[in-house]
């Protein structure tokens, strides 16, 4: 939640006509931490994703806003599905809660205008809330039984919200729609929105994490770019080779290492070694002190010991993703990191698949969804909106053509791959999604407590004051009582 002071700063910066990118640059020059910049940007109306913190994967943060005028409102305005549910006979209003940045919200308005043309008896009232404030705002509204008809929901909150009865199950609506085709959704995208055998939300995206690399640094070192032959040993070897220099000009081989305060840590860092953090999907057993998990984390720790990744002090001085500033050779990022990198990078870069490990080839994927709330007064009209918004045409219109993110529907991927706004190696995003993406991320209601308990312990490993083994034992001791409720 943005505080008064943050809003004050954001207002001041906006008053001066600064773009979000300029705000980020100022923040970086001033040594503002990623978290602080995130908060200020959230107060500006755009919430950047912090790497590995479970924030909204599909909200492009830290980016030069793409002018809404770039998008033709008519481009993609076709192929809308039929609705089994009849339109209301009298005018009704539905409220839809989003967490878009101000610029993408313009595209949202384009969609809503077209929708209302097609459905003159449904008035769409869009509410846009900065991501940093979104969760608190709507939980407070839930307390007052005043939720909107439809609301955005991120994967990490979904199970908690569903468990507490905030949403309506959508299975009956889906069953009535002959064109809906649930099989069209990537299997990973549905995981966070299923509970008790029902589907409570419809995902709009599911982004896998890939290896972004700085081609200029590779060229200067004369090292071939990452490709399908790479494994994690090769990644480590090259990261160490590319680590050069000292002080402000130092080049780091890799952008980040696993932290147990990250809900996304298991698929890319532990599962390739046959290890896990929590037993998925129920997250009812902590496995982090198992020998294979400790060994995997010790394997990664070597990169920190040899200075191949930035220290917390180094990252205090840069905005997310640090990769965009040209001092990091490789980084693991979700597909949602593309817009800020595209906007900020003054070097050649590309995407490759995350390398395979000795036991498995895995990366994480995560996404967000929209739900119909328990407080909806017009659930049928809300369903008509949702059915079109998250249809193939809707996902193409919103997230494919605009190059914003990896659509949850496989049938919408061509619009993304063909978009001029998509990243250069978009095909690897799709390939990763189809072949190595895992949704075994921490997304149960206990997730925030787990990561908040483990994070401070892992800080001591980063500070060199605790061994990996000791930290894993302490994390187990801290996390096991928290997840005991999942065993019930």
């Amino acid at each position, binding site marked *: *939640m943005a*505080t*008064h*002071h*943050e809003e*004050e*700063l954001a207002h001041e910066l906006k008053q001066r006509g600064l773009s979000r990118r300029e705000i980020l640059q100022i*923040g970086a020059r*001033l*040594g*503002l*931490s990623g*978290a*602080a910049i995130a*908060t*200020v940007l959230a107060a500006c109306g755009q919430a950047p994703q912090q790497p590995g913190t479970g924030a909204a994967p599909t909200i492009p943060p830290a980016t030069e806003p793409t002018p809404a005028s770039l998008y033709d409102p008519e481009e993609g305005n076709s192929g809308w599905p039929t609705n089994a549910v009849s339109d209301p006979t009298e005018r009704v209003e539905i409220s839809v809660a989003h967490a878009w940045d101000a610029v993408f919200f313009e595209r949202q308005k384009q969609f809503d205008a077209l929708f209302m043309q097609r459905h003159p008896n449904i008035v769409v009232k869009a509410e846009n809330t900065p991501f940093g404030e979104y*969760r*608190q705002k709507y*939980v*407070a509204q*839930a*307390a007052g039984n005043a939720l909107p008809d439809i609301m955005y929901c991120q994967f990490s909150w979904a199970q*908690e*919200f569903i468990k*507490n*009865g*905030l949403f309506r199950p959508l299975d009956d609506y889906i069953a009535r729609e002959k064109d809906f085709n649930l099989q069209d959704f990537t299997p990973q995208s549905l995981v966070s929105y299923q509970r008790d055998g029902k589907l409570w939300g419809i995902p709009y995206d599911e982004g896998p994490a890939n290896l972004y690399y700085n081609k200029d640094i590779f060229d200067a070192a004369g090292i071939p770019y990452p490709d399908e032959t790479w494994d994690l040993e090769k990644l480590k070897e090259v990261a160490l080779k590319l680590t050069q220099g000292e*002080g*402000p000009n130092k080049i780091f081989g890799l952008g980040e290492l696993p932290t147990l305060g990250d809900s996304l840590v298991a698929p890319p860092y532990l599962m390739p070694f046959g290890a896990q953090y929590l037993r998925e999907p129920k997250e009812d057993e902590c496995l982090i002190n198992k020998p294979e998990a400790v060994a995997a984390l010790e394997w990664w720790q070597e990169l920190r010991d040899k200075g191949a990744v930035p*220290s*917390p*002090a*180094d990252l*205090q*001085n840069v905005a997310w993703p640090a990769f965009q500033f040209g001092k990091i050779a490789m980084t693991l990022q979700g597909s949602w990191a593309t817009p800020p990198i595209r906007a900020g990078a003054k070097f050649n870069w590309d995407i490759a698949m995350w390398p395979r490990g000795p036991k498995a080839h895995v990366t994480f994927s995560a996404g967000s969804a929209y739900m119909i709330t328990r407080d909806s007064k017009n659930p049928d009209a809300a369903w008509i909106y949702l059915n079109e918004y998250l249809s193939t045409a809707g996902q193409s219109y919103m997230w494919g053509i605009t190059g914003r993110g990896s659509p949850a529907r496989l049938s919408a991927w061509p619009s993304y791959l063909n978009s001029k706004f998509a990243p250069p190696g978009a095909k690897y995003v799709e390939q990763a999604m189809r072949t190595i993406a895992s949704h075994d991320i921490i997304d149960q209601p206990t997730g*925030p*407590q787990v990561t*908040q308990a483990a*994070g*401070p*312990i892992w*800080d*001591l490993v*980063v*500070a060199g*004051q605790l061994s990996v083994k000791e930290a894993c034992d302490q994390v187990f001791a801290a996390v096991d009582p928290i997840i005991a409720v999942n065993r019930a």
Partner: protein
Amino acid sequence: MDVNESGGAPLLQTPTLSAKGLCMAVQESVGRAAAKPMGKPKLGKLARREEREFYLFISLWIIGFIAFDAGPILASFAISFTNWSMMTPPNWTGLQNYQRLIADPLFYTAMWNSLYFGIGSVGLGLIVSFLLALLLNQKVLGISVFRTIFYLPSVVSGIAVAILWIMILHQDFGLINTVLSWFGIKGPGWLVQPQWAKPALILMSLWGAGGSMVIYLAGLQSVPQHLYEAASIDGAGPWMKFWHVTVPMMSPVIFYNLIVGFIASLQGFVLVLIMTNGGPANATLMFGLYIYRVAFQFFQMGYASALAWILLVVIMAITALQFLGAKYWVFYEGEAAR
């Protein structure tokens, strides 16, 4: 002659002065002004009108407090006996939340961090701002410019201060470590090493010393000059005058800053959230931040309310202790000498 310890000669008649004697003389001087009310005097017409106006003006605050503050305060007390996620109706759990905090290690961590920060920042702040006020109470050319310069940091908004201090405290190129490196000292990672994070925040808290400084300055300028004149006549040097006139006369102001500063520091939240978010390793997890996390990240409103009420109790207890201790060192004008 020396001041008679048993009750003494009038201050202005004492040619020489012992420390204890001067102190008593000051107290007596202050006490002379005491005029104990002999029951409530009958109010005149004008006074009654002023009284009505007083209630009229204060009524806005009272109405606002009842409408917007009193309800939530009472509600939070009731909520502290429930298990409430805000998404479903609250369940009555009795004293469970209070029992839980006894076994919660983060409760103690956050309390210790807050007390450490409170004692450190208030103690250091009191000394520095008092010394600054003494310095800026001198009659030198351009003193108003100096006062403005020293006060300016206090008007800078919290977020800007946080940004500035993140840079000042940066491990590699921060101002402090750069200066230390000139003397061959390798400065620590102020905000990234657990053992240095709290001292770094205490150091940073001095940035707001200008606010207290202005209060001290006002207090210093209201110390009656005749006390200094009397002390001079009695042969007191600068230190004696400072210790036996200035400090006793300023003690209510020091006490005020102590109370207000300590309460504010125990409730500290914004700068910690921005600068460290409680890290590293919970080294800066202050009580206010912990309440925020429990309430708005874990949505355990019952437990968060219990924590908030415990914080209130702790603040009240510490404030009561401070008031008890004040009997021994705070001297109020108009109060009889003890």
